[in-house]
């Protein structure tokens, strides 16, 4: 038991990644502010990154880290476009509450 606590295996990192991912899921499901929802999505992507890096280090295979580089690039692109969409929507209807973002045309 103490051995499991003291010896850090990739399973520990996977549990950390799962906990961080579920915190992100809570953020996406509970909050009504669209910007907080986007930030919770970034938390979920970070959780996946932690998992990939931990297993890449265990298997001594750099492909996991290359995948993380691509995930970071895609997350940056998604954040830019998503925030542009939020700004464009906010300019038409002065709200960031997703319950009020329920019409396609203003």
């Amino acid at each position, binding site marked *: 038991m103490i051995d499991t606590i*003291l*010896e*850090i295996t990739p*399973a*520990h990192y*996977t549990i*950390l990644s*799962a*906990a*961080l991912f*579920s*915190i*992100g*899921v*809570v*953020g996406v*499901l*509970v*909050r*009504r*502010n669209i*910007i*907080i929802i*986007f*930030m*919770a999505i*970034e*938390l979920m992507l*970070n959780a996946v*990154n*932690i998992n990939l*890096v*931990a297993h*890449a*280090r265990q*298997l*001594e*295979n*750099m*492909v996991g*880290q*290359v995948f993380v580089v691509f995930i*970071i*690039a*895609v*997350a*940056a*692109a*998604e*954040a*830019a476009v998503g*925030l*542009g*969409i*939020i700004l*464009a929507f906010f300019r038409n209807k*002065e709200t*960031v*509450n997703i*319950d009020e973002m329920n019409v396609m045309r203003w």
Partner: protein
Amino acid sequence: MGETIAFYVLSFLILSLAIMVVTARNTVHSVIFLVMSFLCVAVLYVVLRAEFLAVIQVLVYAGGIVVLYLFVVMLVNLSGEPEAHEDPRRLGLTGLALAGAVLLELAGIVVYSYSREPSAPVAGAAASPVQGNVEQIGWLLYTDYLIPFEVASVLLLVAMVGAIVLARREL
């Protein structure tokens, strides 16, 4: 021993900062907690001896994406609170229950995969011709994963053009 202490301290910091991100009332506070959580994840990458990824995390995530979020938060700065905690449309307990279900599923996957007999060991990667973290990632990016690398650069170009078009005054 150092890795143990570092892992537990960092995971406590990461998880508590993440909880504060999703529960803060003020959006700017959420952004600040998010950047602190990203920095802790970068330190975790250093503990995992992925130094290149740690620097990329600080530069791109903490230095680029969070700044973008801060700009947007300041631009849509509403005087009133968009979160009414008495809002009847807010399904707080349902969201928590569903997230708990996700966590249980993930825990089940972790327990199942670690309780099975280990399958045939994954063939380790062929010895890379270069040493060092950055060099090995660079080698892979430019030989085996050249096409995804180029596609990612096209994706970033498309995202840049799209963000500029979306944020203009008149479409």
